[in-house]
């Protein structure tokens, strides 16, 4: 099989081709590594390419596939991993100077799982520093460029994972989603991104940003790939007490999913002020498609959306400031050479090791947790969280899924966002609610606005991954036919 054909296959198609002997894992890995070497100069989607390890692993997997020792659907398929997921023996920098030389001595649970299924890690992808940002511009390794728009950001924070899948530099990738970090870059780059229900995928080995919000998930070329990947990485993990038992999704059910009679809720507030008309049109067109296939569509009021951004940023920053405290230049983090005493190690390490956006959020977090402010901010945010949960519980009594845009805009121009952080934070308005209460949601490409991809967000009930993947697949099948 020639390289170009290989690069054009979805992960499941490639897995099948390897299984059927039409190509090998080694051939596929070589094709991807070659492509990365040539093409990624333009995008900077990878921060580490593990050529040697990948090729050695691919040979090993090919032998196991040949002997029948591994039979998984994605055996032999290369995968790119966001650089905040710990990979034993491979740099895991979180795109920060703080961890520029951190090589974990252990694998994250998701890495163990995908390696058990015979997948091969080809590299680590770029991201916003410590996953804080929506543009992948805050990376210590420099910005990633959106393959779908030359002067556009890929979104973030999993911008590298979305960009490499969009540019055919990986068949599939893992990202992490704390407030939209899988869905928003998937939307900006025109690929599929699944944020699973909180707890279905172990966080063990994911360098924490905000522990109660973080969730690992796949970024892929279509919903079927996302479903297959979800089945590999999900499941309760004794090393993560927030993880839960959950069921695998059925690929057959998803493939033949019928939306007839299903109820779709459209929250008015998701289409309010600030949304680009082109984005609104594309999403509503996709909704109209479902309606044409027999789904029942209803608009509804969800005023709680107004509290989304403050609630999210209070909880996320509070947890982040604590999670990131360990980077202080003693056991972990950048060690300044000119420090003279303990306090100066701390000050210099953290002043020089963290970027601006990370520092901003650490300060916000410290502020909201300070004695005297804790009740006014953190506890208020927890109260808002329970109101948000009530609002969604109520909506899901009526609807099977909730659909809206992933982001109010398409991919922004490079260099235009960071100067106005508040505006950047407002761009998260459609994605963060899902994280606050742990719901599953998927970002599905649904056309373009001014030549840039638009993503539709399908939100489901807790543990209802099969339904939102079904909706996504149904739409993708329909667009292929059309």
């Amino acid at each position, binding site marked *: 099989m020639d390289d170009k054909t290989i690069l054009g296959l979805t992960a499941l198609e490639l897995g099948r081709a390897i299984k059927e002997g039409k190509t090998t894992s080694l051939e596929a890995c070589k094709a991807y590594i070659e492509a990365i070497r040539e093409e990624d100069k333009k995008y900077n989607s990878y921060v580490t390419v593990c050529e040697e390890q990948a090729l050695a692993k691919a040979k090993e997997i090919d032998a196991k596939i040949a002997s029948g020792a591994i039979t998984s659907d994605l055996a032999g398929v290369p995968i790119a991993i966001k650089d905040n997921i710990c990979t034993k023996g491979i740099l895991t920098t979180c795109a920060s100077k703080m961890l520029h030389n951190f090589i974990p001595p252990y694998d994250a649970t998701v890495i163990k799982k995908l390696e058990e299924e015979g997948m091969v890690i080809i590299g680590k992808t770029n991201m916003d520093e410590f996953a804080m940002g929506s543009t992948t511009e805050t990376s210590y390794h420099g910005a990633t460029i959106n393959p779908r728009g030359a002067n556009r950001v890929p979104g973030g924070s999993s911008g590298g994972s979305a960009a490499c899948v969009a540019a055919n530099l990986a068949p599939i990738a893992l990202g992490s989603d704390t407030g939209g970090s899988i869905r928003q870059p998937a939307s900006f780059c025109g690929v599929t991104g699944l944020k699973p229900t909180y707890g279905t995928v172990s966080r063990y080995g994911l360098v924490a940003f905000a522990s109660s919000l973080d969730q690992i998930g796949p970024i892929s070329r279509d919903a079927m790939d996302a479903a297959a990947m979800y089945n590999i990485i999900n499941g309760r993990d004794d090393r993560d007490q927030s993880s839960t038992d959950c069921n695998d999704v059925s690929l057959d059910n998803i493939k033949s999913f019928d939306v007839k009679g299903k109820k779709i809720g459209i929250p008015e507030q998701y289409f309010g002020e600030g949304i680009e008309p082109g984005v609104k049109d594309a999403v509503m067109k996709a909704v109209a498609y479902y309606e044409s296939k027999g789904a029942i569509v209803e608009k509804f009021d969800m005023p709680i959306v107004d509290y989304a951004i403050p609630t999210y940023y209070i909880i996320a920053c509070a947890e982040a400031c604590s999670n990131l405290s360990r980077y202080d230049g*003693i056991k972990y983090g950048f060690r300044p050479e000119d420090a003279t005493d303990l306090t100066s190690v701390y000050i210099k390490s953290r002043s020089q090791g963290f970027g601006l956006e990370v520092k901003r959020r650490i300060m916000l977090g410290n502020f909201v*947790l*300070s004695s005297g402010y804790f009740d006014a901010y953190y506890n208020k945010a927890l109260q808002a969280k329970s109101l948000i949960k009530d609002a969604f519980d109520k909506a899901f009594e009526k609807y099977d899924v909730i659909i809206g845009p992933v982001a109010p805009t398409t991919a922004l121009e490079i260099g235009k966002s960071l100067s106005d952080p508040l505006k950047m934070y407002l761009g998260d308005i459609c994605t963060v609610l899902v994280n606050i209460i742990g719901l599953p949601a998927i970002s599905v490409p649904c056309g373009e606005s001014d030549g840039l991809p638009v993503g539709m967000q399908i939100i489901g009930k807790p543990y209802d991954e099969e339904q939102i993947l079904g909706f996504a697949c149904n739409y993708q099948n329909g667009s292929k036919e059309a």
Partner: protein
Amino acid sequence: MKDYEMVIGLEVHCELQTATKIFCGCSTKFGGAPNTHVCEVCSGMPGTLPTLNKKVVEFAVKAGLALNCDITRKNKFDRKNYFYPDLPKAYQISQLYFPICRNGHVDVKTSEGMKSIGIHEIHMEEDAGKLVHDPVTGMTMVDFNRCGVPLLEIVSEPDFRSAEEVIAYLTKLRDTMQYLGVSDCKMQEGSMRADVNLSVRPVGQKEFGTRTEMKNIASFKAIERAIEYERDRQIDLIEEGGTVVQETRRWDDEKEYTYAMRSKENAQDYKYFPDPDLMPLEISEEYIENIRANLPEFADAKRERYVSQFGLPEYDAEIITGATTLVDVFETATEMTDQPKDVSNWIMTDLLKLCKDNHVAAEDMEFDGKKLGAIINLVNEGKVNRKTGRQVLEKCFTEDIDPAEYIEKNGLAQVSDTSAIEPVIKQVLDENPKPVSEFLAGSEKNFQFLVGQSMRALRGKADPQAVRTVLTKLLDEMR
């Protein structure tokens, strides 16, 4: 000068004797080579998550019930955030909002009678590592072995009015923890540490004075001295027209004074918040009742029972119940011999002397009560005499030997078989014709001489009673 009274509250940390740490599988053993009991979790490696050791909860509930606390049904862990090199995550997982035990009390005996000390709360938390300063290189190194060792922090109410009450309380606390088997409470190894909050006020005043906190004082004696020093310092300060500053002070045990470490203005804001990595922990009624039903008998009850049931002297009962090691020996040996008073005598006279001679504190003694039981049985059965028994005990104390085997091997058994000793005694009579004829002529005192000669001939191993019987019989035959 006015009369002053002290008001003291204690925060006591006890390291729990679980085999593994509170949030990972590393060993909790004291004294390993630096950084050998460390994994990615307890060293705070990026990406790692804590997993709660259920044994810690069990131990905390045990301690709480023993100290008459209410057990919190819905528990949470919180993060206490601060920077220090011995804390690799830069936060300590602890409990602020929902501590596992609340509202308990301990009754302690003082020279003025019994006094009840309130327990405000007990919470679970992880220990930090240790900084080791190398005086040669001037470097400071970190040993993370202790990182993640489970702790209970027991916070008392400000109910103490004297150092004596404090020591009585700490002793009781230590005994209770040891009886429960949840902590060995060795201050010298740091498995029990006390922070003392102390203020003074004129007698009769209702409001508390300004308090200072003295941290991590390393022995009961030092605590007593530190309390007295700090009381005098505060009173002198007030009498001279000064005011006590709320601050943390450190006790220097060599120079015997306290000095200021940190004032309230510089007090840290720990920015506590619920740890999102650990789920709320529900404790059921059934779980609590199961633990309550299996609580051991504590020192006070045991002491009373030893006196009433076994007839031990108060003093002996007090000493034996003062160390769980002695309790174990006493109960094991009593079970084997059914001779509690005998056992108690052996402990009080012989075992404690052996501890002293070997420079071992009774509570640190490693001695199996089965050996004492065996020795006592051998003596009471007449297999060995008490003197030999004492020698065997001495041997058993320092070496791992079986008393019966040892006696056998070294030919120490007392000969009580009359057929075995008769020929020897016959020979003694043959060799001493004069005392024999004098005895037969009516000189009773020669009998004792012949017993002595016979015992010597039997090299002390014979049962004196058997010797007398045989001797009487043989002499009667000669009449």
